[in-house]
């Protein structure tokens, strides 16, 4: 999962162009990720100001029974 820090985001689209899955949508100050995101993390590298963080969720999900 990609986490966006709105405070840092410049809404510049560097992540949009770098995304190989076309999973990011930008309009003025709105930045949205859709389900096509593969967690590849390229957008994290592309972001000049560090507004994006890759949160690794796979394998960490707690099974419902034990939650």
């Amino acid at each position, binding site marked *: 999962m990609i986490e966006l820090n709105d405070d840092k985001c*410049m809404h*510049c*689209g*560097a*992540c*949009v*162009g*770098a995304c*190989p899955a*076309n999973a990011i949508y*930008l*309009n*003025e100050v709105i930045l949205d990720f859709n389900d096509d995101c593969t967690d590849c993390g*390229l957008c*994290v*590298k*592309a*972001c*000049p*100001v*560090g507004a*994006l*963080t890759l949160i690794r969720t796979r394998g960490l999900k707690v099974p419902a029974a034990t939650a």
Partner: protein
Amino acid sequence: MFPKDSYDVVVVGGGPSGSTSARYAARNGADVLLVEKRQEIGSPVRCGEGVSMEIFKHVDIKPDSSWFVNQVTGARIFGPSGKFILIDAKKAGDEVGAVIERDNFDKYLAAEAARDGAEIATKTSVVSLLRDGGEVCGVRIRRMGEERDIAAKLVIGADGFESQVARWAGFNTNLKTRDTTSNLQYRMTNLDLDPRFTDFYIGSVAPGGYVWIFPKSRDVANVGIGLLLSKIKGPSEAKDYLDGFIASDPRLKNASIMETVSGGVSVSAPLDKVTADRIMLVGDAARMIDPLTGGGISNGVIAGKVCGEVAVEAVRAKDFSVEFLQRYEKGWRELLEEKLYRDYMAKEKLVSLDDEALDKLIEVMSAVPLENLSTKEILGAIRKKYPELVKEFEDLI
């Protein structure tokens, strides 16, 4: 003021490439809509604002005081040791010849398009391509909460680095990390610069890219950095490297930041194919940025003119097939392709060099007389002194 239901040509993106395409299509008789998702053309700026004087040769634009603010006489390229070479703006067919105000420049180009008959819709996003039996036949737009379908005989994708239109249409615009850069820039004031020069700093100050100082005056300049994604290790490196550079440069230490600008820039070879039935791509969307400098304004404008002209020819001939649109492929490639590939190879080489090798390069280049600063002459001179540096480039010499 609301767009009509149907146009000959819909251009997506009101940057320099889109406005120029729209302008040349409209002035030659096509019915054109230019769609821009931002509420203000040209703003916010995402650019270092350096342009070569080349564009004035190819396209009918005259320097206007609203955006043409500082014509420089040369570019200085500093190696890691601080030695530099000076490239004369007139002699080198260079990327930087003047520093402009991009927001006003983009508005100027859009206004030219409007004067030549194009309709412009701002705060209007293209959200998808319309298709008729697989073929593109228009765009869906969203504007003030309302969606509408607009028919078009031809769609021009000029939507920049983000290039959604290209991807919707099935072009492969995916970039490798070695062909993509992350960029950050401050517009700074309270400086003491020599406004006659644009400065570039290469080496480990900016892995895989460079730091630039593009002055608007003695007091104001764009100070920015581009880093190659393949060299970036963690988040926010562009900012960290740029802040580090500024802290170390006495001309910049006491400056204030008036504006922060960021963005992605491709430094790839151009796409193999920028046309398909009923669609053409232009500018950043077609990866026409110069891979060595990261400059894309001139190329987008130069290709935009060809794109607009071919659009009208297609409208007249009522032929929007990919075969007909080869006129555009051929036209823009004749003007730009050779340099794009040459600069791509030069970039590939440069990013592989360490500080020591870059210093050698600067040292050799500073000894080449200015008149001869062509890629060929430079490579020849390097071969004489450091043959190992140019081994892979023998065929270029």
